[in-house]
């Protein structure tokens, strides 16, 4: 399907006028996977990326960098959410692969009043020393690009934030992954009759403990 077709599909889903077929969902996922961070934008590095040596110099808080680099420096280099040997290229390709992974969940919602699509998957092999159980990617309809990627402290509970409204699940995250075939708890959230994502009471911290026990971590 043409990319413009995927964009139109996303707009129609956001406006609530269409339910995706499997092939349409696949086209939307491909579009989001290929979108990446905005290559033409610049973001201020700010405190979380300041002081890191990058491209032969020390980053200053006021430096303007491409969003892909800002997020890499904040979440991988400074935050250690990804494994320590993850370079920028590996970080970006891991996100593309995660979006395409059939075990990822996909959610339409609004954040700060603007439509977006959020993709979530268990972090498994992407989890670094200070990472968490899930990876979250926000794709913004207005920009047509990813705007942030991180491993949320409170797992999928972050989707309950009052800033995120109108949650509609288009694909549920799976209970296991080809790279992690061991026993894993199922997607701990479901959509209620209003399309709002609700928890089934499964606590991520307990998930985590069970996972670590099961895998000897």
């Amino acid at each position, binding site marked *: 399907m043409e990319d413009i077709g995927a964009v139109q599909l996303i707009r129609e889903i956001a406006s609530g006028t269409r339910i995706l077929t499997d092939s349409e969902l696949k086209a939307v996922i491909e579009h989001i996977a290929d979108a990446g961070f905005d290559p033409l934008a610049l973001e*201020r590095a700010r405190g979380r990326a300041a002081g890191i040596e990058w491209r032969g110099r020390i980053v200053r808080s006021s430096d303007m960098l491409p969003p892909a680099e800002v997020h890499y420096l*904040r979440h991988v280099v400074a935050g250690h959410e990804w494994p320590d040997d993850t370079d920028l290229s590996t970080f970006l390709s891991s996100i593309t692969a995660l979006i395409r992974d059939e075990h990822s969940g996909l959610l339409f919602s609004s954040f700060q009043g*603007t439509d977006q699509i959020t993709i979530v998957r268990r972090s498994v092999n992407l989890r670094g020393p200070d990472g968490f159980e899930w990876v979250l990617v926000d794709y913004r309809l207005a920009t047509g690009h990813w705007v942030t990627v991180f491993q949320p*402290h409170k797992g999928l509970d972050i989707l309950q934030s009052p*800033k995120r409204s109108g949650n509609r699940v288009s694909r549920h995250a799976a209970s296991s992954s080809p790279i992690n075939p061991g026993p894993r708890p199922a997607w701990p959230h479901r959509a209620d009759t209003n399309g709002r994502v609700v928890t089934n009471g499964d606590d991520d911290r307990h998930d985590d403990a069970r996972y670590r026990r099961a895998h000897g971590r």
Partner: protein
Amino acid sequence: MVTTTDMMTLDTAALMVADLPEVIAEWAQLPEGERASWGADWDNEMAGLERVAGLASRGRLTAAQYTQFQLIATRLTTLTADVQDIGLALPSFVLTPSH
């Protein structure tokens, strides 16, 4: 027990809070993508800070960690109105202080 992840959370929250006055001043002029990015990261780091607040209330932080936590909480309290003006959420311990 305070983990290295908790300590990282405290440090990251401190850096974001230190950036706040500049972010607040620039907010209206920031590109939409950067506002969404910063807002989502903010929600996440404040969720982590809530966890550290729980450790603080149970007396699990060292004196230095508790001082750092208190500095963050004080700064957030000072900036409460401005933070709410730009639509960012505040952790519950700032809105209903008990520490």
